[in-house]
């Protein structure tokens, strides 16, 4: 079965979920004849038609290949960790670790990665905090 058919099914389900959500919008008074429901329902209908179309007339797109999924999964995981670690660790430390890890995933050595990560993070910190006046978290692990 062509992968586009699965995508069509996915779009159809998405449209159904979105449309069901839109059915629940109830305005207390109607300022205009359409109200809050109509436009989302129109979108759900459009997406539903596109989904059906893809199921009935799938294109020739082959199933995508994920040649190296490990670095990407690790990268996405590190983005999530970064979001949680940014405030406690501070911008410079968190960014050094993040850039170092990504550089390592791209084939650089740990040393080079962390060193350039530190230089990059420190430079950005200087530019943002002192040049642009935008505060970035310093971290909570400093004594005092």
């Amino acid at each position: 079965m062509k992968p586009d058919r699965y995508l069509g099914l996915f779009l159809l389900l998405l449209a159904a979920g979105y449309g069901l959500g839109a059915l629940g919008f109830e305005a207390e008074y109607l300022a205009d004849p359409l109200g809050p429901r109509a436009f989302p329902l129109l979108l759900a209908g459009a997406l539903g038609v596109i989904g059906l179309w893809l199921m009935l007339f799938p294109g020739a797109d082959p199933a995508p290949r994920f040649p190296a999924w490990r670095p990407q999964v690790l990268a996405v995981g590190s983005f999530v960790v970064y979001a949680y670690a940014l405030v406690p660790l501070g911008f410079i430390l968190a960014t050094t670790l993040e850039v170092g890890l990504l550089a390592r995933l791209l084939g650089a050595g740990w040393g080079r990665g962390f060193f350039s990560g530190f230089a990059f993070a420190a430079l950005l910190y200087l530019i943002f905090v002192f040049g642009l006046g935008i505060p970035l978290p310093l971290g909570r692990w400093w004594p005092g």
Partner: protein
Amino acid sequence: MDVFSQLVHGFEVALTPLNLGLALAGAFLGTLIGALPGIGPVNGVAILIPIAYALKLPPESALILLAGVYYGAEYGGRISSILLNVPGDAGAVITTLDGYPMAQKGKAGEALALSALASFIGGTLAVIGLTLFAPLLAEWAIRFGPAEYFALMVFAFTTLSSLAGRNPAKALASSVFGLMLATVGLDPGSGVPRFTFGQLKLYDGVDFLIVAIGLFAISEVLVLMEKSHLGEATRMRVETTLVSLKTFLASLGSILRGSVIGFFIGVLPGAGASIASAVAYTTEKRLVDREGSFGQGDPRGVAAPEAANNAAAGGAMVPMLTLGVPGSGTTAVLLGALMMFNVTPGPLIFQERPEVVWGLIASMYIGNLMLLVLNLPLVGIFARILTIPRWFLIPAIAGLSFVGVYAVNNSAFDLLFMTGIGVWGYLMRKFGFPLAPMILGLVLGRLMEVNLRRALAISGGDWGILFSSPIAQVLWVLALVSLLFPWLVGRFAKPR
């Protein structure tokens, strides 16, 4: 008021030291962003918006900077096309065809100089076109009512969808994703919360900037991570960047034709720099390539697409400014940026915020001149920047995205949301959904709904109003034609 005196006022805005400095910064960063494979104009503009926002720049200054990055990137894209045979961005793909062969023959400097001149001529002619056509189009569009606007937006989505990807159905789905995302938040008409899942943070709607950076920059990082084995770029020496007058004059016709083609293709919604350069190249190949030298390093094959992609960048500003309906991903991001600064482009902008439009137009004349200077003697510096290793460049894009998104609201939740959108964008790319329609949908969604509801309020709920005026009817027909266009082309092109 006539165009000329307006333009003089524009120059008064553009020539203040701040705006001159920002135009130069935009030109420099744009060339850099265009030159580096992996960051195109969309990513560059999106990543720079939070900085412009945090600096509390006035809207015209922010736009001067961001637009400089946009058209500057079209200059920069050619550098790696010529030196490395790797296009720096989508508009420079065609430039590799004759640019790299020229470099292999030892004429890299000549190719760079000629393409810089071609870019300058294309860019400048497009700004002249913008100056002349934009006010006319705005004057005409002032008569648009909500029904015409709704039809116009549908037309923008259908043309972008039929041109943006291999499969128009997927491109349309991408537009709907964006429109759906735009409905998140309090309903503008009744104040009912929609798709907020009880999150107070979502009552104002999703942050356009976070979506733009996640969708383009983060997904790009994930795509680039796939090819971890690629080695580092080899350095190519550029001795002189001069082109003989004879070669220049021989290419002048191609440059001028490429500029005109590029400008008009740029004005069309959906067709941007990449299509413009391809059309210009094929036109020249048919018209002037008598010896079959195109593809072997013919200077005209470098000049025409470069003139066209720069002209297209200028042309794409016309519908964005005058109608408030952008035709490409990058202009959609620019429009979103303007909305963050509380400026709504559209026909009224020429009366309400002349300093923004005319300041921008004037700065584009200056910016093109700056880009020519940057790209002729200083091209060696940009060539050297191409040797930045991938293992540093890609993490740096991620780091810049993080810091930009965090700086807007100081919120770690935004980083998670950006990551989620980035993964979504990555999957869209993998499954053949183009990204530009989604960002266009997000930017236009509110406007589209408001205009639809206004139209139906005028008619008292009669849907016929959408098709009642001649302008609206023409737009609906055009929308239908553009939807059928790929199918018609496929139908008639196959038998050959």
